[in-house]
């Protein structure tokens, strides 16, 4: 009400503290994302999760690759690294091993993590490095202008599949699970509360956790395929997503404008790389001492 009165009186509204001031680099706002984009929502969920957990933000590092989602690192006010295309995960691996006290979040897009970084993804999952990966999947390479991605559903149009995509899309949760991730969930950027919850769980879980966020690309994916504005896509996700916790990951394929199964699919225990490394080191030390 105060603001309204101020407007009526044509007074300047004093800048109030935003609850996310501490976590976002406000000097970099406005951000680069288009209207109707879902990445902002994923960032909000992440920031909410950080605040809910009350973690020491000084010990959190956000690492991103290249692409629309790759810019996330630049907006989050923790130590943040914007690396090369696809190499966020190995960079994060080095960061984690260099300083095991850090909590590391890799925040990047589908092209970055599954396409060019696919190898690093499966091997980081295999090693079970203690990292949380938030993978924003918008079905397309948006930063470069709408090219086909490994996640683009079949028969969807993009600039490099001008006659419809004919490749089978990647199923990211299944890839993560088969490579050895310990926590795998998928939400759309509309499932704010659940997404936040999943990020918290993944963050706190030791080992390689992955949260996929299905997010609309209003600029390229939706425009080329005539799916309306970002809000229309959100609506579509709202109407067509089904929550099925624990669903076998092989059923999670996404077709063009088909039903999207969301939920938490994997939550298991495996020893992390650091634990194994520590164990190995101890063993070597005893061997050395004996010899």
């Amino acid at each position, binding site marked *: 009400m105060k603001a309204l009165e101020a407007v009526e009186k044509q007074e300047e509204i004093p800048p109030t503290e935003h609850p996310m001031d501490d976590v976002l680099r406000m000097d970099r706002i406005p951000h680069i994302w288009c209207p109707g984009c879902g990445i902002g929502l994923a960032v909000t969920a992440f920031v909410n999760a950080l605040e809910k957990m009350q973690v020491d933000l000084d010990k959190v590092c956000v690492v991103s690759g290249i692409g629309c989602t790759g810019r996330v690192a630049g907006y989050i006010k923790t130590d943040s690294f914007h690396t090369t295309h696809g190499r966020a995960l190995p960079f994060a691996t080095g960061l984690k091993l260099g300083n095991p006290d850090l909590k590391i979040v890799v925040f990047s897009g589908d092209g970055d993590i599954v*396409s*060019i*970084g*696919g*190898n690093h993804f*499966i*091997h980081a999952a*295999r*090693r*079970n490095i203690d990292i949380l990966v938030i993978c924003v999947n918008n079905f397309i390479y948006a930063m470069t202008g709408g090219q086909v991605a*490994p996640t683009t559903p079949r*028969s969807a149009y993009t600039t490099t599949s001008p*006659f*419809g*995509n*004919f*490749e*089978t*899309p*990647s*199923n990211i949760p*299944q*890839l993560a*699970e*088969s*490579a*050895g991730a310990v926590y795998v969930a998928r939400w759309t950027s509309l499932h704010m509360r659940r997404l936040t919850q999943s990020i918290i769980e993944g963050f706190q879980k030791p080992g390689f956790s992955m949260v996929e966020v299905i997010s609309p690309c209003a600029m390229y994916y939706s425009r080329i395929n005539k799916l309306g504005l970002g809000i229309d896509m959100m609506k579509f996700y709202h109407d067509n997503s089904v929550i099925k916790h624990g669903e076998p*990951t*092989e059923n999670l394929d996404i077709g063009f404008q088909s039903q999207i199964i969301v939920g938490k699919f994997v939550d298991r225990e*495996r*020893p992390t*790389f650091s634990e*194994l*490394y520590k164990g*190995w080191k101890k*063993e*070597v030390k005893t*061997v*050395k001492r004996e*010899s």
Partner: protein
Amino acid sequence: MDKIIEAFHDGINKSGRDREKMCMVTDIAYDPEVVDYLGVDLFHTNRGRAIAFATGMKLSNPNLILAVFIGDMATLGGNHFVHAARRNMDLFVVCVNDFRYRKVAAQETPGDFSRLEFSSYCSIEQPLNLPHLARSNGAVYVARWTALHHEDLINSMAEALPQAGFKLIEVISPKPELLEFFYLNSEIKHGEDTAKVGIEEDKKIVVGKFVERERETFIDAYNKQHYKVLGDKFIKIAAE
């Protein structure tokens, strides 16, 4: 001659496929004699890029039959592996799993660290379950044998070669003195869920044929989609 190459030789015979049309793409430096023995063209690419190289060959000349031998447990080339399987590129992939980089770290590591072996199957880290990865990305044929399962390996190769799509046979082939140990410590379980075939310490190695299914290949999907949209204007890719 390498046991696996021998099996491959017999496998080609049994499958009845044309050797002249066959190209072997590897990232392992095979002895040149292999070419004369098998009667195929051999392309030794740089480390990890064999699958991508073969992808280019297949798409340029769909008549070729491509056998890809990878030796590095899909570490460098893991990404190409995953995406070729997803696309269901018509490749026959043999992964020679020697549990380590034979060519690099043949010598024992200094000191008494027998456990310090460098590979995906490195004992500090947990090994990659390659059959599971292949299956979950869409491979149409997945099998695993040790190099001593000679007959089974030949049959498997003969069975897989004529199929259309991404086929994987993992062959466990550690250094000769350990071969028998692995052979004895394996059990055949056809059709086993690939999630359960990971190689673990103190556990028997599961071998057998795990997956056999049909999926549209990349080239078929490409042709179909473009015919649908372009009709007669579409020109299929063909050999020059």
